[in-house]
């Protein structure tokens, strides 16, 4: 995990090394300055030696300037290294996600990926900056201060050492206990937020059932729970402060007492005593810092793990070595295809599929939820690889094609489709970046999207909000179809893409397809029989198998399930046929 992450430091190696170097140098000046201060008091002020004060003063200002330089440089490189590291992490994850296949994507949830790219990276950025700036500095500052204290007076310094060890032990136990509570608290906190989220999106249900007060009391209970558990955790943390203060004060008093005796016996000077007092704060504060870092680090471990999961994920689809870039025709064939979403082939969702579809045909695919209609068509543009058997497009195995070329020739309108923020034209041009406005209008006409687009105040330049929230479901579907058409594909697959479009428009779209793109093979997944009944052939899927194949009339005659579906959709409509 560390290796994966460290590989992303890249061009910020220099900054990552310089940061601790400057921070350690800053420590050096921090150590020297108290010595100079002591000298100013001892040899200057007490002795009444003005020249000494000047001399040491100049040195001290010099040291302060150098210290300042180191501090600024440390700050500068620390910022650069950590923000750069974060940038590289984000970029590397994003780049890698772009290579993910559908099955890779299925493994991570959308929300999971977003969290990894945002919150987790921010956590690591902070942890990394901390690591570079303080993780080296604090222990070294502690050791140096300790060494200086020993240099001044070993006996008094031993008091610090004992205090240090005792404080470390106490802090360790406090933090350990606090961490335990925090680990319990954070998931609860997330739960609370999830329940708020739930309420925001289900506000209509809440209001329809007049459950505002009920929901509020539910939330109050949850937030009281959080209050209680955070209180427990913080109560542990808050012990740090008095323990620390107690140790510092005890040290100061002990040193005062022992120091006074030593000064009287001429074993110590007053200036040295003052310096020792300064080091006391230095040593114990550094220990606090180390403890803090420890906590921060352990909290970011989860983030680090989640990020490296994404970085280490390898796309399971690869381009062939000598890919074919041209798809000769829209012929499709499935030969003994079996497919499972699991690598080991368990829980197969498609069994022994054999179909031949000629270029230019329109084929409807019908079947209940979970009958693997979508899985079937996803194999054609190689969104997933078959477990066994072959899928052929234009007479060649789909695995022989360059993936981008294949997907440009086999255009899929996904069931769960998305428009992106940008104008309608920009969205359409996802299909073909160079398409002229005229071309875009044409595909919109085909998809019956032109009527509503042209009614919009800004027409094709209307801005689509994120997720297409400012167009209706049916309008969105029609735009998605238009976008797919812009590729001028050899095969067009509509995966339940007109479910929110009214029947009349649905029929108009199908009519336009038949007239305008006769050479394109059209596969239409639908719930309504009416959407597919005029197709050249209809495939009826049932439990991952082809249950029936034929024209509407043939299936109506021979296939029991088809007949049942048909009748159920027209039930109570005995006069339905007369109506037409």
């Amino acid at each position, binding site marked *: 995990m560390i290796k994966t992450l460290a590989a992303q430091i890249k061009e910020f190696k220099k900054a990552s090394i310089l940061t601790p170097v400057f921070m350690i140098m800053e420590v050096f000046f921090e150590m020297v300055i108290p010595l100079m201060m002591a000298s100013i008091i001892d040899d200057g002020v*007490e002795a009444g030696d*003005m020249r000494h004060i000047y001399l040491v003063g100049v040195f001290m200002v010099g040291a302060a300037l150098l210290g300042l330089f180191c501090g600024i440089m440390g700050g500068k490189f620390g*910022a650069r290294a950590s923000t750069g590291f974060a940038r590289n992490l984000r970029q590397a994850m994003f780049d890698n996600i772009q290579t*993910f296949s559908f099955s890779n994507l299925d493994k991570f949830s959308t929300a999971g990926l977003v969290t990894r*790219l945002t919150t987790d990276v921010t956590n690591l950025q902070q942890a990394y900056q901390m690591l570079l700036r303080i993780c080296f500095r604090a222990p070294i500052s502690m050791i140096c201060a300790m060494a200086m204290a020993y240099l001044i007076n070993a006996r008094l310094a031993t008091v610090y050492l004992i205090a240090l060890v005792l404080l470390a032990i106490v802090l360790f136990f406090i933090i350990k206990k606090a961490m335990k509570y925090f680990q319990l608290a954070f998931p609860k906190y997330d739960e609370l937020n999830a329940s708020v989220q739930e309420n925001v999106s289900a506000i209509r249900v809440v209001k329809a059932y007049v459950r505002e007060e009920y929901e509020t009391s539910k939330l109050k209970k949850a937030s009281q729970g959080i209050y209680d558990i955070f209180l427990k955790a913080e109560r542990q943390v808050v012990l740090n402060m008095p323990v620390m203060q107690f140790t510092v004060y005890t040290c100061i008093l002990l040193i005062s007492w022992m120091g006074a005796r030593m000064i009287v016996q001429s074993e110590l000077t007053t200036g040295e005593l003052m310096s020792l007092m300064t080091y006391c704060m230095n040593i114990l504060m550094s220990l606090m810092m180390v403890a803090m870092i420890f906590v921060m680090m352990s909290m970011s471990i989860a983030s680090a793990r989640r990020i490296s999961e994404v970085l280490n994920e390898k796309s399971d689809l690869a381009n062939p070595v000598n890919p074919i870039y041209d798809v000769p025709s829209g012929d499709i064939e499935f030969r003994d295809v079996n497919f499972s979403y699991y690598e080991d082939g368990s829980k197969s969702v498609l069994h022994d599929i054999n179909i031949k579809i000629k270029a230019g045909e329109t084929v409807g695919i019908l079947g209940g939820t979970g009958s693997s209609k979508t899985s079937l068509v996803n194999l054609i543009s190689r969104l997933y690889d078959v477990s066994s058997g072959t899928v052929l497009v234009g007479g060649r195995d789909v695995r022989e094609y360059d993936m981008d070329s294949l997907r440009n020739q086999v255009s899929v309108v996904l069931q769960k489709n998305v428009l992106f923020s940008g104008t309608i034209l920009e969205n359409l041009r996802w299909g073909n970046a160079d398409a002229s406005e005229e071309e875009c209008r044409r595909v919109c006409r085909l998809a019956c999207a032109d009527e509503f687009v042209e009614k919009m105040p800004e027409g094709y330049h209307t801005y689509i909000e994120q997720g297409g929230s400012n167009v*209706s479901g049916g309008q969105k579907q029609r735009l998605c179809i238009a976008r797919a058409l812009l590729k001028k594909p050899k095969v067009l697959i509509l995966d339940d893409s007109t479910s929110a479009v009214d029947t009349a428009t649905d029929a108009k779209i199908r009519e336009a397809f038949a007239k305008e793109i006769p050479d394109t093979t059209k596969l239409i997944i639908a719930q309504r029989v009416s959407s597919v009944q005029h197709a050249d052939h209809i495939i009826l899927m049932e439990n991952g198998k082809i249950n029936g194949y034929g024209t509407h009339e043939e299936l109506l005659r021979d296939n029991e399930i088809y007949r049942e579906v048909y009748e159920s959709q027209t039930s*109570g409509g005995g006069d339905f046929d007369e109506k037409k």
Partner: protein
Amino acid sequence: MPGPMRGRMPKGKKIENPGKVFKRLMKYVAKSYGLHLVVVAALIFVSVLANVQGTMFIQSLIDDYIQPMLTTDAPDFHPLAMAIMRVAGFYAIGVAAAYVYNRIMINVTQGVLRNLRNDLFSHMETLPIKYFDTHSHGDIMSTYTNDTDTIRQMVSQSMPQVFNSAITIVSVFISMVILSVPLTVVTLVMVALMLVITGKTAGLSGRYFLQQQKDIGKVNGFIEEMMEGQKVVKVFCHEEENIKKFNELNGNLYHSADKANYLANIVGPVNMQLGNVSYVVCAIVGGALALSGISGLSLGALASFLTFNRSFNGPINQVSQQLNSIVMAMAGADRIFKMMDEEPEADNGYVTLVHVKEENGRLVESDKRTGRWAWRHEHQADHTVDYVELKGDVVFDGVDFGYNDDKIVLHDVKLFAEPGQKIAFVGSTGAGKTTITNLINRFYDIQDGKIRYDGINVNKIKKADLRHSLGIVLQDTHLFTGTVKDNIRYGKLDATDEEVIAAAKLANADGFIRHLPEGYDTVLTGDGANLSQGQRQLLAIARAAIADPPVLILDEATSSIDTRTERIVQDGMDKLMKGRTTFVIAHRLSTVRNSDCIMVLEQGRIIERGTHDQLIEEQGKYYQLYTGNAIAT
């Protein structure tokens, strides 16, 4: 201890009046924890004084205890021991005070957060649907997470820190003035310099922080959108373009984050080293003064002064480091208060829904469920009370409606639904079917016209009672985290298990529920993500069934359900509709055919109305819509 860090940071917008926000926030904290804060302030005072006592002691240690002993042959350590004991006592008090005020602050911080969340939430629940339409859910959530987090930072750390520092600064300042006025002036000049430099740096860094927040917003927005549409990206081979765009945004973020962090990082060292310079300047000036004997500054006093000089710089450094988090907290508080200031849903209704029974031909109010409801209409003019039986008679009279005043989507809608009738709305996407049903339960208020319910203007009916009388099954079902049982019981909180099961049976949901791993006690999470669309719909129907409302609004959502499931759902809906006034947005022929009245909508107008047979005869739009076997969604 850092709180959970969220990716979406507060967006960098300028606060109009930070002073006012600050005052309001303080008022909010003081409302529940005023006394706590007073006690905390007093304890901080005690703790600082104890600390100053200690510092004073170290000064006097040399002058008053050690120096005299050096000059005598038989040093007496007794007075020193006594002094140490005394100071130890002070320290003990200081430590105790510090511990207690920190403990109290935890209660204050967590309490304020809890109250904020509760207040925000209960206020949010009163907001009109329009609020949720016009604010992104991400932004609303961010108020609960990021914005309250900034408040936590400020209340738990900045507030006591600043107060503590302020007291330290004042007490040290007084001590310094007592020791030497000229040196105090020198120190103050240096401090002023420090403040100017810090202020400049902090200001600059603040600018970059705002820029950074903006860039983070952009990066996160892009990430969210692209992760959501990643499969579409793949299908359109758009990976290269995506990487390029992301690279650009990511690079911008790096630049602003780098600068912001850099400037924030150097505030500490700059202050510290300036403090050291200040020390030297004081030593030189003080030395000169003491040696020349002009100001009567003793050497011992100079040594003490130098120590004070050091302890003066520390707190100033700390305050300057808190500035950033205070600014952030003000931005967070501003957004929180903005949400709290949103107008709640207006409800001037006074007509309430009551259970009634009939006695001697008159309706009498009853406190038990009787199966009959009535509107309790207390006339405002003379305070006489009328009971109007709830029948489900709904009339729209010339209703105009738009989500915005300038864009009317429903025009002059006239509609009569008689009790027990089934009214179907038919029309193409966007014709306004769902909108009409949203007006009956007053999710939105109309611009013009009148809606009457059993002859009462719906504006006079209390919203809660109005909605209690209406059962709704929405097109997109929402389930809540909890057991299946809890979800069904949502319609009637005090329902017994038997009632729950009966409702599930009515809705045809019982069968699949029994097949779930834990049956009725199966826990649903993430909006029932582990259920199919059809199953979720069945639960929503059961939820409406248990409420047993006299009037029903059903938005048939069958587009993504396969035919067999659809039939089960349909069957459940049919059972539910029996004997109730029902408004149904219909997709299925059978539903439409059996309706007492069919409204055909187009572009916000009712263009045809009548029974199925009448409409077929008319050969109008309704007739046209039957090019398929089902009716459009």
